[in-house]
């Protein structure tokens, strides 16, 4: 099948698949950001066990393949009497892994905040949580825009894990399997999905660069 036949026949489904991929990406990335910030707070907290938990989390979830995590969530959790819907399993995997990377980027971003500013905050009488909230975290986030942009793209690509479980509507990668079991789409079916992934990534990259220029601090 050529591109135009595929698009006439499956155009609607491609559109839905693109929306699904976007939806999975946005939810996962938002979750990863929130979790990443919390993890980072734990990792710098003046409380030993919290630091330990944060570091441990990052070591685990930075080093586990997405597919392996998804298999655990889908097939192993039921043994613990936890049966999650397929979509929840996918979103959990695509949130937990990027959160570890997010925390690593924020840790690097924190190093750009001068020690002097932290001393100034302490001398104003700010407590540790206030210093994190007012001084350290905002600057760490600003200096992490570009790595976090990469993470957003990587998160989108990770959502292709959704193709491994039955979803309706399915995502861009899942749709390719669907087409190839219902018709003979061949490589062309992949090609259309690839173009949609790439197109989204280009837009994300542009937005990231724009945001970086806007919030980056002169020193």
């Amino acid at each position, binding site marked *: 099948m050529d591109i135009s036949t595929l698009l006439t026949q499956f155009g609607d489904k491609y559109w839905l698949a693109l929306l699904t991929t976007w939806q999975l990406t946005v939810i996962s990335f938002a979750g990863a950001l929130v979790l990443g910030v919390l993890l980072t707070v734990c990792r710098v907290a003046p409380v030993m066990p919290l630091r330990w938990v944060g570091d441990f989390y990052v070591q685990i979830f930075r080093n586990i393949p997405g597919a392996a995590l998804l298999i655990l969530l889908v097939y192993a959790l039921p043994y613990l009497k936890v049966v999650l819907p397929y979509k929840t399993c996918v979103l959990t995997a695509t949130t937990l892994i990027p959160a570890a990377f997010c925390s690593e980027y924020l840790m690097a971003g924190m190093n750009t905040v*001068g020690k*002097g*500013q932290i*001393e*100034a*905050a*302490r*001398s*104003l*009488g*700010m*407590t540790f949580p*206030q210093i994190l909230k*007012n*001084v350290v975290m*905002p*600057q760490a986030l*600003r200096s992490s825009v570009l790595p976090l942009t990469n993470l957003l793209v990587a998160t989108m690509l990770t959502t292709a894990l959704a193709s491994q479980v039955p979803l309706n509507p399915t995502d861009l990668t899942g749709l390719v399997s669907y087409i190839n079991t219902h018709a003979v789409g061949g490589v062309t079916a992949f090609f259309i999905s690839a173009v949609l992934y790439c197109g989204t990534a280009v837009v994300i990259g542009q937005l990231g660069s724009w945001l970086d220029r806007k919030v980056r*601090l*002169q*020193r």
Partner: protein
Amino acid sequence: MAQTPVIELRHIQKHFGTLHVLKDINLSVAQGEVVVIIGPSGSGKSTLCRTINRLETIDSGEILIDGAALPQEGRELARLRAQVGMVFQSFNLFAHKTVLDNVTIGPMDVLKTPKQQAREEAMTLLRRVGVDTQAAKLPAQLSGGQQQRVAIARALAMHPKAILFDEPTSALDPEMIGEVLEVMTRLAREGMTMVVVTHEMGFARKVADRVVFMDSGEILEQNTPEEFFTHPQTKRAQDFLDSILKH
């Protein structure tokens, strides 16, 4: 009965590894007094200044702010720290906040001052130090002298009982030193209690109530500027004055 000193240090000892940086320091600063600490580099004067609000830890001794002992850490330390302002050599303004927000953040977050009131007070302070027209800018857009004046306004915004100045003009170009010293002189005349570590002998002579001379982690002399500069008691103070006043 004598008034309680605003700042009192008792038998402060501190080591950096094997280096004994503060040797049995005793110092008290009265309400409204301007104490200038001078001495050669490495004499421990900056370290002493920073121990007063525990930015540096100490090995032993006691620090009292208005008669209350400064604890090692925790909320109580934060609360007492808020009563002592600090101005740093490298300004240390919050780089992501505007000049105005740099001044309002302390009162709003620590003293829980309502936003509107904090902003009004901040603008008054910025006007007092002559940078009110820069209120909406970020620190990096200001000159060093302007940044340091903002830092002074930020300290004043907390209504501190005293302000510590840790070499406030050492990172400034010569033409900007004057504008910062002028603000400090005005503060001193208005009765602010100040501890100033500086190499500006003119300022020490003109503004200080008392000059403290340190060398090798010890306080060697304390005197009025007049007495200290004309009749230093120790050999080391004489040598120090000779070396800086020669040229």
